[in-house]
């Protein structure tokens, strides 16, 4: 929210004889000239030319009306109360706010004005909050038609409030302007039963859909907040597992939550900007610089930030000191990394995968002997990443430069800052006959969704492969850790001849494997997605795909 964006607040009333008139304005003189010593010398906006928008025809009353004039945006909510007690049976007013025309997110102010308009309407309808004050202050009394308001008051039978305490509406305008400008919110008690509560909510863009293979990373430490952030049980359960390493589906398994609820919860976090989305880190992945790498190269500040972020703290984790850690396979390395960074989580009950480990170790004073990673080294490392080069080979190429650097953090830093991007791998079927319209992936979601019509009359032994296919999507955390060997089911079975059985098996599995795979082969599903959905490693998926038919692999 821009600071002090509200330039003026004013209250306009329509009088059946005197026309539209600004009764209250803060600051004085901002809308109509005022004799007050503190008044602005010239009004912000030409009141006379905009009265038709402040007090419009009934068609446009009770709607949020905005219009621009003189480089200001006037946001009003004209209210027309039709009741017999008023002269001409109408009571029309408008509580409007003036902000600068260029304020991007003016919708928040619109919402405040709308709420205020409705609230004032309510107050007026309940107890004549507005009309009574006008009578009391004799606002329209400057001419001879003094009797109008009084007559109203008398008819309705209100007491005349004490005059001289100043106008309540004016005070409201003043308080709202100051509070919203200074604190973006305000709470003003009006009477026993009514309180004004406003808050300027910034407008957020709608969050993107969250995919199971994405990796959330918290940008703020939610667990350090004193009050629980939400009553959403899923959210509370998953937050400890959000660490910038686990994918959404992995989180769902670890937290034992429903995958769709997990996705939704993370979407909420994304909406509020608490979470960034990364990709699954693995050493088989390919990263390459984007056009923004120039910003990193020329900005030393970012370089230092990066150096702080990627430095491996000197910690004894039981598996060697903090040199470079190169996992051979993605899975293994991921485990390693996760245990590394989850160590402090155990201690501190925090889940941010940010620089906090570093922090805690720095506090212990183990930091000093860590040599500084120079900006140049980092530039060299980042610029040597390129398309077609897996992280593994890149690490091997740059082994000596990587001393004391956490590779995952190095990559993550680049992705977060936007100067690296993950080159995803896709497969497209090159077979001339295109596959039938792909099934939605969630056909696998139900625990017993038959992937194959012949499923029912087949013996039980395919259960293994079946559940394996479903494994990442069922929500039992225990299953996640079991390693899955796709083709070992025949051994345990008896009854059929071994040979036949195996053939049948392989046929079935082939068919079974191929079918769900086909839908991934349109070039729109990256390997991360396939691996997550199938619960297999990249190699296994690749093999399966190759068996499924002619495919071409794309890196994009």
């Amino acid at each position: 929210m821009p600071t002090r964006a509200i330039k003026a607040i004013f209250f306009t009333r329509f009088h059946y004889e005197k026309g539209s008139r600004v009764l209250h304005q803060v600051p004085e003189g901002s809308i109509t000239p005022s004799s007050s010593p503190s008044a602005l010398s010239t009004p912000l906006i030409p009141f006379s030319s905009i009265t038709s928008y402040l007090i419009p025809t009934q068609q446009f009353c009770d709607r949020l009306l905005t219009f621009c004039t003189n480089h200001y945006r006037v946001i009003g909510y004209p209210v027309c109360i039709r009741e017999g007690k008023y002269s001409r049976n109408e009571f029309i007013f408008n509580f409007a706010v003036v902000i600068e025309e260029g304020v991007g997110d003016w919708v928040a102010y619109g919402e405040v004005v709308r709420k205020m308009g409705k609230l004032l309407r309510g107050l007026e309808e309940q107890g004549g909050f507005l009309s009574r004050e006008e009578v009391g202050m004799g606002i329209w009394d400057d001419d001879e038609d003094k009797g109008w308001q009084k007559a109203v008051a008398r008819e309705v039978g209100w007491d005349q409030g004490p005059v001289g305490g100043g106008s309540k509406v004016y005070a409201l305008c003043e308080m709202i302007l100051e509070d919203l400008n200074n604190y973006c919110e305000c709470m003003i008690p009006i009477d026993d039963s009514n309180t004004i509560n406003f808050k300027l909510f910034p407008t957020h863009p709608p969050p993107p859909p969250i995919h199971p293979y994405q990796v959330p990373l918290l940008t703020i430490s939610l667990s350090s907040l004193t009050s629980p952030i939400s009553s959403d049980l899923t959210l509370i359960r998953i937050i400890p597992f959000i660490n910038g390493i686990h994918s959404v589906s992995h989180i769902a398994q670890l937290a034992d939550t429903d995958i769709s609820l997990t996705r939704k919860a993370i979407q909420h976090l994304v909406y509020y900007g608490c979470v960034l989305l990364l990709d699954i880190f693995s050493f088989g992945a390919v990263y390459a610089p984007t056009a923004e790498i120039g910003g990193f190269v020329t900005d030393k500040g970012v370089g230092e930030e990066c150096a702080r972020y990627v430095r491996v703290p000197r910690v004894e984790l039981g598996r060697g000191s903090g040199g470079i850690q190169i996992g051979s396979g993605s899975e293994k390395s991921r485990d390693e990394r996760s245990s590394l960074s989850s160590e402090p989580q155990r201690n501190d009950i925090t889940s941010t995968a940010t620089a906090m480990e570093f922090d805690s170790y720095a506090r212990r004073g183990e930091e000093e002997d860590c040599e500084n990673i120079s900006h140049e080294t980092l530039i060299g490392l980042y610029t040597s990443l390129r398309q077609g080069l897996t992280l593994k080979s890149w690490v091997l190429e740059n082994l000596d430069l990587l001393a004391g650097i956490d590779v995952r953090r190095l990559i993550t830093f680049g992705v977060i800052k936007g100067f690296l991007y993950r080159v995803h791998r896709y497969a497209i079927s090159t077979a001339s006959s295109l596959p039938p319209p792909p099934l939605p992936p969630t056909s696998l979601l139900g625990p017993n969704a038959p992937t194959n019509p012949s499923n029912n009359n087949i013996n039980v032994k395919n259960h293994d492969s079946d559940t394996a296919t479903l494994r990442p999507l069922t929500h039992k955390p225990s299953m996640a850790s079991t390693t899955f060997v796709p083709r070992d089911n025949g051994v345990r079975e008896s009854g059929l001849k071994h040979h036949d059985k195996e053939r049948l098996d392989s046929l079935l599995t082939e068919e079974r494997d191929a079918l769900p795979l086909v839908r991934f082969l349109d070039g729109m599903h990256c390997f991360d997605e396939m691996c997550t959905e199938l619960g297999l490693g990249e190699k296994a998926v690749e093999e399966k795909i190759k068996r499924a038919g002619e495919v071409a692999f794309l890196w994009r």
Partner: protein
Amino acid sequence: MSLPLPPASNLHAILLVTKSRSLGPRLVFHYPPLSPSAAALASNKAPAWFGNQTSTGSLDDSHSSSSDWGSSTENEGADDDIEAGSRTSGGRGSGRTSASHRDREKHRPSAGGAWGRQDSIDEEDADLDDDGGRKTNGSRKNQGGDYDWNTVLGFKVDALEKMLCPANRSFNKRRFELGVENIVFVGAPMFVREDGLWKKARRKKDKRTLEEKQQAENALANLHIRHPDEKVVHRREGSGSTRTGSFVYPEGFEPGYGHGMISGAPSGAVSEAGSDTRSNSTTDNGPDMTMFNVVFVLNPPALEYQLRVKYMYDNVTRKYAKALKHEQARFQYVWKESKKIINIKQRAKDNGDSLSMAWHEIINTSPLAKSIAIMFDAISNDKIAHIHFDATFNTPFQIPQPDSTPYLPNALEPQMPGLWLTTSNVIIEEDNDAPVAQHSALLLLEDTETLVKELEGDAKGNTTAIAFYLRNIVPTKSLQKISIKHNILAQHIEYIASHLVYWRRARLIPPLHPRDTYILSPNADMGALQAAIPAYATRFPTSPPLSKMLSMLSGKPRPYRTFIPTNEHREAYMDILAWLMRGGWVTQLRTFAWVRVTAEIKAEVALELEREAAIKKAEEVRRQEMSDNDSLTESMFSGTDKRSSFLSANRERERDRPGTPLRRNRRERERERELDDEQMDASTILSPRTAYRGSPARPASDAGSTSSNRTTIPLPSVPTTRPISPSQAQVQAKPHRPSPLHLKAASPSRAQNTRSPTNAHKLHLNTHSLSPSLPSPPTTPQTYTPSLVSSPQKASSLEARWLEKIGQTFQIQHPHIADTNSATNPDPAIHDAVVGVGLGEEITENWPILLKYFDGKHALEDIAAREGIKRKRVWGWITAVREAGWLVVVRHW
């Protein structure tokens, strides 16, 4: 918003309102005839997360997710209300529905949810129904809609008329912006002048000359290619054969377009007619119509509100209103047409005709109404509206669309798959000189023959010439080369190019070259792949299939020529490349570089500077001795001591000594001396330093001193311009040029900072304060750290020295450095790299030219074309420089 917005006009209706003495405010015409009600527009928002589904391949997934998400959270609205405040619920709710919603056609607002409770509008409408008995309700409107003459957009016509007629002339030619809930009426009211005219009277003489000039310029304007979407095509009658040398802007591209129509007519015929108007309008007894306002009704999403409204106003509303005003000034066009329309409407209304029938008639009778209809159909579909009012005046309108972006959106940002990803279109502020267009090639977005055919179907004359041009446009040759090869005037080809680009028929690209590297674009629209495969197959039946091509291009980046099997295939493969480029499938991988200054160079330069200072000192002493002024001599002696400590201060980057007045005085005096020296020693100028001259960051005195190698003294002000210390670097280093391309604020250490904001900072400070202040300036390279020169064009004097020094290394061996420092040299190849003598000299010679491109913003691929040097030579130099370890090279698009 750093990303370009996807094209989405959010246009829902166009209204024409007039105010006249006889009829008062009057809604003359609206289009479409059956306008959606405001409430429907407000509630019918399809807030969408656009694009991502395609790129992550979840067209199907979105269905699934919507079903499963929906099923699990059916009472979502209620939950949200409990959980969060009023408005946020809207936003989140919309986010959820967005997963299932994917209407790419028209409603693609990206942030709809923020408009608060939509139900409030419905509620109000219900109120209105009770109150006024109007049929504003959606369902009722549908029943009686076609016969509902009294409401437009769900508002009573008379109320709307009043609202859309601004009261006084203070709104004249200003943006009229009226928001009602979340729909906005954008107009450009045009008022009649006080004297009853619609435009200023001009003297006749001016007009004559102007007319002639315009006519000459219009000669080229005949080149006109029809857009398939445009309904009306008009070619200006004119002498198409007279080619003038002057460059003519395509329509809509005139500088100050729009103003031209008021103050100076765009065509001769028009300005001539202007005089008729004057006589016309003056004969009338004051004009009847006093104002007209063309109002465009939009419902932009909250987050894009300002931009969308601005685009519409700047590109369409204002221009259209000005065009209408111009026509009005000529022969009361607007008012005549308005009266016509009003009459037809009245008749139809009296007869009880349906709206659509009446509208059909109106559009067929009134060119004005027709133009509004065309405008609406085109703009609301994000196309180009080609409007013609009469035989002499026609003009296109469009909201320009981005044709490329340097910025790859991340998972959280709106996606625009298929948009060409490149930095080649990013304007670099430093190059204001040569027009880039002539070094670019033109990539036709349609096949040449299709374009030619379109042209022939439409054209009346000289199509052969244009067809000739079109057929000679190849994406592998720059416009400059084409114009030379085919003997076409450069202006003509550039005109055609700009015209084609304006009409979205072509794109300017760096010329395709087999030696360049192309990769599968990370922004390629994979969702379009299934459709593209057969299209590709019919187009290139004998070539490898699309999937194979893309697969090849997506591996390890290689020059494109390595994919071409034989020389005979070359042309076919370049065609394929052009096709892939066209669809945004591939993008060029371009090379960017910065100069890396090693510690050795820095030490060497420092040493040199010191030596120079010493020499200068000696010289000064000598000079002082010759002079009689003893006191001055004395002060100079003490001054020299201090000066040497300046040098040390220079090297201790952290220190910043304020110059005392005494010192400053001396400096001035020294400078005078330097100037003398320069005159004396003009022959000792080391090298052409012009490349670094006049950089604004440098103190003016440097310019004087640098040219003489013997008198250069690092002034105390130098350290402030050196981007060594990080704080200075931040000041000096310009934000990376493509403005969307600055690093995102999101920082992984944010959490850390929030928790202990001072911790990291303290550490940082510690490293600085703890680092022992260097006692004296040792000149060994160990005390220097290698660094990059971020922009050679804006180098400080010290950086310039370094660069110059580097430039010399290609020629001369430096035994001194090589001997002493080979052990510490991280890259021993640097000085030992045996650069061929000839090559080395060449590089030294062209070093200043090359340096211009070593700023990380210019692609090295562009050097050859821009500098007019053979490609091979340039790459030879670059490779040599790179192998010598002077460059930090990165490749991206």
